[in-house]
Every structure is written in structure tokens, then in C-alpha cells.
């Protein structure tokens, strides 16, 4: 029976050899092949050769056995077999056994015959804890920016979409890293805004993103000229926009506070029909889609579409949303929005999930969406106001809609909401859209 490695001791037998009889590299080759073919690796882990070998050189065979000086029978046969070729001249005929400390000055730290004493340093990196882009910390702070700052932010966002468009799809990590390189802070919010504007979509858990193909959604027709206006979303590049300009004119607006890339509208002369535009863009290598506003999903259907989390372990401290804050709690299978914090000296927020008591399942989804479910579950009044004259829908920041529903509002005009004190304001929302949306969300205004 073989001993485990821990029970064995490593020691060395030393020999001399002449370069003109057997060069060090050939010695390694001969011994290496014999060790492999004799299946002696468990006894003979390595061979060390004198640094800078000249006409005559020393080499040391490492042996792992029960104690120093004990030569396993297999190794004994191996040495006898190769005696003539390699092991004819032991360093010490009576007591040929050495420790690493005894031979280190002679062989150095390297085992090769060449002077490779400059290893590549190990780059120790802490294992990154993967964080979900779905975990947000609510932030209602806004700061006033100069026009120049807004323009700069907007350009950076434009570049981000160019890059995402070229890549097509990727992971949350690559998105986050690119934002960092471009100097765009808070990548989770940037991802969210790009989703609100329909430029990209993500997988259920947010770990992967895919940029949407370039698309046009009709927003209006000039009653006099018949020219049609379309909102552009999805993939874009400088070259793509240049080609689009050959077919119509582009109207460009900044998003509020430069929080996303410019809103672009295409004004298409009446004589250019959809098919012509599609064909012309195809000749330039671009597939472009004409789309319609999507039908609004019921809250129930949306909730059922969320990813269910299986196999969740409870070696975390839990906090539950009470309508305003997250409060320490013990999980008692109550419906609600929960945070999972690591149990260590500096607790970290790892996950946020919604628990649905009816189905006994944990749901994963966008942060505001899960909070919205929690708000409804504790029967908090959602104070939405619709201004019929100004066609504005006002939503309290603390009761922001789920991402999907907010996207219906944002895509009505292609503009992100503005902030007013504690309110989010969505402009140019038709009464029909406001009514339909609130009905689907089981709320009233």
C-alpha cells in the first residue's frame, strides 16, 4: 500500500556527470522518460541540476519515501537500470542523502539547466463577488449640471451605445467595466435607463445583455406635408446615422441631465415608404425594423414572468421592506421584498428578492418592480396624478413603477422623466395610455 503524500519525506540523492558524456538536457530527457514509463512519479517528483553546469556537473534526484535514506525498491531498480548511463558517480558513496537546504546553494530555486531565475510574479487578486445589476440603492438626489456637462455626459452615453452595438451582446461585467473606462458612474442605473429607452434587453437575472436591432417607432405625421416622424432606438453607430441621414432628416435632443444618449427622431419625407427605407438600409448592410407600441402586460402576467430562484440558502441576515425602509427581520414566509446581507464584520448586500407567499416562491426582477409589488402587498396607496391639460403623469419617486411599465411611459416620447421635488414627471402621456397603464397596475389616479 502506498503512503499518502503527507506521510512521506522528500530528500535527495546526488550524482556527478560529465557534459561530454551526457549533456544536462539529455540527462533530463533520459530520466524523465524512464520515470514516466516506469510509473515512478509518486516516488520521484523531480530532478534538480547544478546552476550553470560546465564540463562536469552535479544533479540531484528528489525521492519521496517514508524517511530520509529509505529507497523504495522500485527506485532502487530504476537507479540500477540507469546506473551506467546516469548514476555511476554518486556525490557521496557512503551516505548519499541530502536535504533541500543542503543542496539549495548549488541548484538554486530552478530545476532547469537554463538560467531562468526570474519567475513571473503572481498577481494576487481578491475573488470578485459577483453583484447583480438588479440591486439598486434608491437615490432621489439630483444635481444641477451646466449645458457643457450635459453635452459631455450625453456624448459618453452615445459612445457607450456605439460600443454595445458593435459587440451585440455581452455580460453585466463587461458592461460595468466599459462604463468605468468611459467615466460613466453608476452603471446599474445606466443599464436601467438604456432598457427604459428600449436600446437593449437583459436576461431575467440581469447577467447578460443584448442590444436591440435598430428600430423605428412611429410618433406622428405632419398633416400638411405628410412627412412622418419616427423615434429611433436600438443599435447605432456614426456610420449608421450617416446613412440614415441620406433618407431623411435627424432631429436630436438631449435627455434630461444628459442621463442617457441623445434622443433621435427620423423625419421621413412622405415619398419614402417603409419598404424603400428598409431596402436602402439593407444595401448599406443594416437591417432596420418598423415597430408599434407594445400591448401592456397585466401586472399578474408580469409577476408570473419573473425568474423564480431555487435553492436559496439562508446563511444571510434578512431585512424586509416596510413601505419606507428595510428592517431587520426573521423570515416567516411572509410576502414581501427582502434584502440578503452577508454575516460578517462588514455586512454586504448580496441579493434582493420578492417572496410570494401564495406560490411559496422567491422572485427575481428589477429593483423598483419588486418594491412596487411590496407596496401593493402592504396596501400602501400609490399616489399617481395625471394632469389632463399638460398631459403629464406624475409618480412619487418612492413609488416608481416596475421597469417594464415605466418603459411604456418613456417610449411614448423617447424621453426619460424629469424630477420635481419628490415626483417623477413623464411628459406627453395620452390619457388613454395613462388610464390603461394604471388599470394594468391595479392603481387609480
Amino acid at each position, binding site marked *: 500500500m502506498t503512503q499518502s503524500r503527507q506521510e512521506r519525506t522528500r530528500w535527495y540523492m546526488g550524482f556527478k556527470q560529465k557534459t561530454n558524456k551526457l549533456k544536462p538536457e539529455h540527462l533530463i530527457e533520459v530520466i524523465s522518460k524512464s520515470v*514516466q514509463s516506469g510509473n515512478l512519479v509518486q516516488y520521484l517528483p523531480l530532478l534538480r541540476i547544478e546552476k550553470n553546469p560546465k564540463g562536469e556537473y552535479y544533479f540531484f534526484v528528489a525521492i519521496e519515501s517514508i524517511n530520509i535514506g529509505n529507497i523504495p525498491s522500485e527506485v532502487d531498480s530504476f537507479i540500477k537500470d540507469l546506473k551506467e548511463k546516469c548514476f555511476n558517480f554518486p556525490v557521496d558513496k557512503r551516505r548519499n542523502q541530502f536535504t533541500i537546504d543542503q543542496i539549495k546553494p548549488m541548484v538554486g530555486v*530552478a530545476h532547469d539547466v537554463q538560467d531562468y531565475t526570474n*519567475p513571473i510574479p503572481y498577481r494576487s487578486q481578491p475573488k470578485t463577488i459577483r453583484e*447583480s445589476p438588479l440591486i439598486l440603492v434608491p437615490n432621489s438626489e439630483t444635481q444641477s449640471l451646466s449645458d457643457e456637462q450635459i453635452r459631455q455626459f450625453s456624448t459618453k452615453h452615445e459612445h457607450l451605445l456605439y460600443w454595445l452595438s*458593435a459587440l451585440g451582446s455581452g455580460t453585466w461585467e*463587461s458592461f460595468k467595466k466599459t462604463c468605468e473606462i468611459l467615466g460613466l458612474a453608476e452603471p446599474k442605473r445606466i443599464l436601467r435607463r438604456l432598457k427604459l429607452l428600449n436600446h437593449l434587453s437583459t436576461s431575467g*437575472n440581469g447577467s447578460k445583455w443584448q442590444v436591440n436591432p435598430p428600430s423605428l417607432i412611429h410618433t406622428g405625421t405632419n398633416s400638411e406635408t405628410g412627412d412622418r416622424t419616427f423615434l429611433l432606438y436600438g443599435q447605432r453607430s456614426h*456610420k449608421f446615422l450617416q446613412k440614415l441621414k441620406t433618407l431623411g432628416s435627424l432631429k436630436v435632443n438631449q435627455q434630461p441631465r444628459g442621463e442617457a444618449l441623445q434622443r433621435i427622431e427620423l423625419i421621413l419625407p412622405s415619398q419614402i415608404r417603409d419598404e424603400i427605407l428598409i431596402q436602402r438600409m439593407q444595401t448599406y*448592410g443594416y437591417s432596420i425594423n418598423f415597430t408599434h407600441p407594445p400591448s401592456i402586460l397585466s401586472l399578474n402576467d408580469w409577476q408570473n414572468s419573473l425568474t423564480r430562484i431555487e435553492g436559496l440558502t439562508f446563511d444571510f441576515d434578512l431585512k424586509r421592506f416596510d413601505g419606507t425602509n428595510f428592517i431587520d427581520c426573521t423570515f416567516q414566509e411572509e410576502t414581501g421584498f427582502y434584502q440578503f446581507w452577508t454575516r460578517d464584520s462588514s455586512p454586504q448586500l448580496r441579493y434582493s428578492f420578492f417572496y410570494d407567499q401564495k406560490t411559496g416562491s422567491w422572485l427575481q426582477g428589477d429593483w423598483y418592480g419588486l418594491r412596487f409589488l411590496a407596496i401593493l402587498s402592504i396596501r400602501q396607496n400609490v399616489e399617481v396624478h395625471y394632469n389632463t391639460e399638460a398631459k403629464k403623469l406624475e409618480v412619487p419617486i418612492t413609488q416608481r413603477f416596475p421597469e417594464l411599465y415605466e418603459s411604456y411611459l418613456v417610449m411614448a416620447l423617447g424621453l426619460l422623466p424629469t424630477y420635481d421635488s419628490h415626483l417623477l414627471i413623464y411628459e406627453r402621456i395620452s390619457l388613454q395610455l395613462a388610464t390603461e397603464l394604471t388599470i394594468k397596475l391595479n392603481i387609480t389616479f
Partner: protein
Amino acid sequence: MNKYSDWNTALVRYFTQNVPYGTKIYLSLDDDTLKKIGSSFTQECDHVSWIAIFCEVVKNKVLRGDKINLEPVSELDDDTGYPMGIAFLGLMVLAANQMSEDEVLSQTNYFSRFRQILNLSEDGKPRPRGLEISKGQAPEAELWKRWNQWLLKQGFIPTAHEGSGPNKYINYPISQSLLRNADTDRLRQIFTEKQWRTRWDEQILFTKVANEYSKFSQHFKKLIDDRNRYEALATAIHETYEDWLENGSSTTSTGRSGHRQWSPQLYAGIYRTEDFLGNIEYYLYPKQQRGRSLGSLRVEINEKQWDLREDRAGWYLPIGQSLSRQEISQGGTYLINPNTQVRELILPMRDFWILVPDPDNSESGVYASWSSPKLGEQFIIVFRESLFNDLQRLRDENLIQWEGDRETKYSAFGNNSDWYEVYQCQILSQAWDGVFLQFQELKDALQPTTSLSISFLGGLKVPKMNAWISNHPPQVIVFAFHPTIEVKVIDITTDKTVYTQSLSSNSPHSIHELTEGSFMVNATCLGQSTQRIIKVLAWNEIDFTSFSA
């Protein structure tokens, strides 16, 4: 008969199509390769062999009487942009590959073979007429340089280089020669003797073959010992093996006029993802066949069909549900439809997988079996528990390092699994020769294949264009086993050196001269050198490819 340009195009495609960027390219043209390429032409070859046809076509192109004239093959092909000289250079390598088992390498011996191929009579001079050295330069050297330059521009690593002394120029074709005809015959004999019928992948087969070291010629032994050629040699051995399996395990090649078949198998690697809950999943990651265009293919996995769609050069997108421990442990064979070109996708049974970060997007968090680990790169090893002793031995000898202490390993499939992972592995040293392992293939897979490597770190990369965005160029880091390296940056458009500096190895450096344009970064250390091309683009130059409907 196919034209010279047809052969030239077919050769370039054979050696570069479906080959990942950053791969070393060897123009290792041999009889078997010519049969394979010939069989792709629509025309049938009656009575004469593809080798004879190829030689005749090249001869007609470059021979004027008994004098070689390289002018007709010295430019780029107008239609393809490929250098026109590749078929001629291929013929030069063919001559090297036809040298007998232990024939001494000399200018006279080499050109004697070369003359035989072109039916040129001996005239008492080593070099044939038209290839005489003039002003210290051999005419064909310019073609080799052009080929190297073209490969670099495509993102590959050229390998043809001149030698020293009288063999200075013949070293170009010699350096491209992998398996000589005699070596492939010997390999077939060994496969037959050993009756190796398991469909091993390249790495495993290489180790099995290397264990038969004493049975090979000096030339083949040199190839095995040369770590620089490890991957290319493993591929060449594997192609011979596949052919042996397909041709009824015959000990001889299929005959000079026979068809060398493309492999009916595709092989898969492993693609690893990890989600926010720390759940690790592995997927089948099918590899494309080098140099071969395949039509639409579907793979049947557990009674479900999966389309094979290209991910990037060399690879299809990952397919199937996440792999179970059993599948990783035992490997698998999956049927392909239609089965006219390829029949099966094989996940080899292995004891370990080395997974490196995405070379196109290292921040993505995805690891896969894209390549062997590069110097300085951190990777993951997925392994059976029985390999852990060997890994610890490598760590004890400061050859590799991984995150945590020598006992640190993570279960790959939860509890009660004998598969583990070690993270953030890195190769530290080049001194592997005197270390012996139980699993020799682990050593073959991990031992560095280069002693010098240029990496681009950070910056904003546009993956599918293999370029960086201006204002966000990468830092340059040269990994080497020596403290300093000489770095030179050449602007390819102007051919001017824009930067030259002695830099510390293994640490990142910002090179401000990398502005918009294309540059060749050249690193030299202890007589060895390596190059990489870098493209830097303005924002308005990047574009997207539309999704197909």
C-alpha cells in the same frame, strides 16, 4: 486543371480559416494536406495525384525554361487580397516535408528535393537558377516576409523565420515543416500497434504519442521537445490520427492518388459561466474545423436540436443545457444533422479542463477552453480529484500558483462530487523539465509554450474588429522570464518606428504613441522576439453587423 490562384486561395484558407486570432500559423504543407485541399475542388483527379497536379500548377506559374521567376507571385491577389506567393512557399515546405526520416539538413540536400519536385536538373550549384542569392538576399525571402506581414495584419502569429549560416534562407521552409511524410507513416504504425481507438482530443493524444518518444526519428523528437510548436504539432498529430481512424486504421497512407478525408467529427470544449448566486454552469463549446466551410448544422442533444452558429473565428456559440457532472466526467458523442459533411460532435473524456478568460473580452467573467494559458494570464482548472496531488506538486515547485493556499479547491458540482476547480491560476516559471507528474498531459497542457509574450491590458476593445478605441488604448505588458525587454512600436502605414524603449517585464506600460492607426509592437529579449499588431480606431470608425432575420 485548377489555376495557380485557386490553389493559392485554397492554401491560405486552409491554414487560416476558422483559426482563432493569436494562433501561431505554420504553412506545413504536406502530401496529406494537398489531398485534402484537392478533394475540396469540384474537379476530380483521375490517374494523377493532387500532389502532382499542385506541383505542375506551381511549376507552370514560376518556371521560365529552367529558371525560376518569382515576379508573377510577388504581389497580392486582386480578388482576395491574399499574398500570391503562398502556393510557391507551400511547395518549398513540401520539399522540406519530403526529406527522409533523418536526412541531414543542408542547403544541398534541401534544394535537391526541391529540384526533384520541379523536375529541375542539377547544375552543380546548390540553389536553382533564379533563386540565387543577390546582394546578400535570397529572392524567396521577400515572399516569406510578405506572408508574415499579412498574417500579423490578420491577427495571427507568423512562425517562418530565417536561420543562421549556410542554412539561413532554407530555414524559412524548414521552420514550417511539422510532420514529414516519414513521421506520419511512423505515427500510423504506432496507432495500429497500440490500437488507439478512443477519440481523444489533441492534448491527450499528444501526451500519448510523446510517451512513445524513443520510437520516433530525431526530427520528430525535436518537434516534441520544442514547446513553441506544441499546439501546432498536437493539431497535426491529431489530423493524422483522425485520418487513420477514418481509413480503417491502415498502417500506410491512402496512396498517392487517394483522397485524404476531412474529419467527420467536430470536437467540443467547455464554456463556463457563473451567476450572481455563485452557480457555476458548463456548456458544450463546439470547435470549428480549420480550413473547412461547413453548411448549416444542428446537433442533437438529449432529443433536442441545437443550431450551430458562429461565435468567433474557430468556435461556434455554446449549445445545450448546462452539462452534468456525468457528462463532463465521461465525455459524450452527439449526432449532427445533416450528417453529410460531419457526423458527430465529441466532448472528449478528460481528467481536467483548462479554462482561460475570453480573449476578446476578458472582463466578461466567462471562461472557456479557448487556448492554452498565455504567460501572465490567470485561468481556471477544472479537474478530477485524483489530479490534485500533481497540481500541488507544481505549486510546491513554484511553477504555478492559484488563489488561496495549496489545499484550496472548490467543488465544481456541489457536495459529493469528485470534480473541483482552482481559481486565478497563473504560470510562474519556465523551469518545468525536471518535474515529474502522474498525469503527464497536465504538464503538457500547462508548461509554457513561449518565453516571451505581449499582452494588451485594459483599454476599450472592440472585440469583433480586434481593435481599440482611441483615447482608451490598452497598456502594453510583456511577460518574460527576464527582468527587462526591448520594446519597439512601428506605425505600419508609414513604416516608421514611433517608440523604442527598454522596459521592465511583467508590468504594464502606457505607450502614448498608440494613437489612431495600425501599429506593430515588437518585443525582444535574450535573442528572442515576438510581435503583435494593434489597431486603434476613432469612435466614428466602429460599426455593427446587423442581426440576420
